[in-house]
């Protein structure tokens, strides 16, 4: 018994060791980066030191240079665009996928159209969308919609196709109507897959947002880094990249929490 306790203690010590190692590795990375800039190995015209990025971060609280907006305005603009596209894709895509998976005629009607759209990456829609809709919120939201729509449809479609026939038969023996079975058996059982699709959609929409803003915008985080390049402000570029990364990370984290609540029976 003693032996086992010791083992457990040893393992915890090991975990701690690896944690310290990770922290050291990240700090070393930052330090080398800082030193390379300080000693002029890397030019400040092409890269900014970590401390400089931090300073710029606080400056951007009120400063609007070089892109004409503070960092919060940029974040707000980007969020508005991406969330609009993302949520409209969920609201339209997920139910559509489920209905297609359940009702054969609908599947046969929509599937060909969907298969035509599917292989075209959302970014390829940018020129057409700009010409059709302009470069406002609607255009970018539409591009993000394309990027999030496809995984939402595919996954909820696959999810509902995988509904256990036993569950369906059980519901049938209780005399439930087809729509009722769809609602009470099909939809819940496809939830884990649907959520997996929404998770992909989330990543896609955030990645596509940047592309949309690089190409066609007058505000937003993507626009900010594009302007950073034009005005040779590597600090602004890196700040923008980090902000995009951190926000993406936070979204995924929040989403995982929601997913765990909604489909907590999944692992049972």
């Amino acid at each position, binding site marked *: *018994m003693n*032996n*086992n306790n010791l083992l*457990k203690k040893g393992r915890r010590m090991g975990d701690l060791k690896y944690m310290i190692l990770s922290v050291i590795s990240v700090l070393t990375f930052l330090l080398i980066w800082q030193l390379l800039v300080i000693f002029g190995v890397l030019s400040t015209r092409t890269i900014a030191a970590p401390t400089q990025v931090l300073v710029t971060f606080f400056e951007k609280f009120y400063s609007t240079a070089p892109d004409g907006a503070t960092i919060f305005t940029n974040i707000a603009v980007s969020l508005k665009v991406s969330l609009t596209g993302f949520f409209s894709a969920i609201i339209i895509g997920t139910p559509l996928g489920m209905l297609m998976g359940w009702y054969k005629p609908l599947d046969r009607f929509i599937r060909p159209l969907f298969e035509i759209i599917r292989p075209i990456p959302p970014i390829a829609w940018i020129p057409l969308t700009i010409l059709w809709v302009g470069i406002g919120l609607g255009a970018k939201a539409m591009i993000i919609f394309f990027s999030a729509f496809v995984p939402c449809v595919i996954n909820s479609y696959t999810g509902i196709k995988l509904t256990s026939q036993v569950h369906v038969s059980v519901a049938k023996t209780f005399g439930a109507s087809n729509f009722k079975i769809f609602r009470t058996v099909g939809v819940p059982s496809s939830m884990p897959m649907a959520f997996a699709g929404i998770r992909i959609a989330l990543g896609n929409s955030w990645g596509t947002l940047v592309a949309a803003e690089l190409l066609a915008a007058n505000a937003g985080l993507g626009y900010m880094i594009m302007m950073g390049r034009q005005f040779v402000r590597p600090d602004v570029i890196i700040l923008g990249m980090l902000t995009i990364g951190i926000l993406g990370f936070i979204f995924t984290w929040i989403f995982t929490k929601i997913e765990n609540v909604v489909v907590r029976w999944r692992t049972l």
Partner: protein
Amino acid sequence: MSMEQKAGTRLIVKDVSKTFYQKKIEPHHVVDKVSLEVKDNEFLVLLGPGHCGKTVLLNIVSGLMPPDEGSVYLDGEKITKPNPKIGMVFQKLGLMPWKTVIENVEIGPKLSGINVKTRRERAEYFIDLVGLKGFENSYPHQLSGGMKQRVGIARAYTNDPEILIMDEPFGQLDAQTRYNMQNEISRISEHEKRTIIFVTNNIEEALYLGDRIILFTECPARVKEIYDIDLKRPRDMIDPEFLRLRKMISNNTDLAL
């Protein structure tokens, strides 16, 4: 040589205990002071209910897991890590899905660096013996449950172990296949004499196969009783003596097995 042993004894398990901790605090005793001896070339059956303790005991005997207390000796040497003299047929098989039947069977000699020609020959011999000729190049997922179990048996034999441990090998098969496989293992073990430690929770299976049966208690696993089975082979499941033994063992167990 750290342990004296009687003539004909291969393996000695001495006072082995193992405890796991559930949720980090609750102690869960799975093996409690188990001592037993395995004789050379015998078919020893470990019979016990449920899924408690026996697999852990086997993992300790095979050297995959260290005991908390006690030791296991093979020919007088203490076991601390897996030993090529001991082979194992796993309950859940563990066939590698990316290897074909013959690649699975020859994995033992391959890992010990034996050349292709020799190991192929040996693998083919045992594939033939377990009745899988013609399936050498199939993948495991193309085989039925009983056939997969045969691959697992051939794999263990191909490494040429002196002691073979079989952990409830037929637990996941349907009744008919299970019955066939019992016949098969009986035939194979007659053909290729080895010391076999066979774990099961089925009394008929134990009586049908074993030279000796060690009956375990439920959780934690302790040795409850040892039976020498002198029935002649091949055994007959409706022989009066067989039925008498069956009744005797069944009366001695806590649960209906």
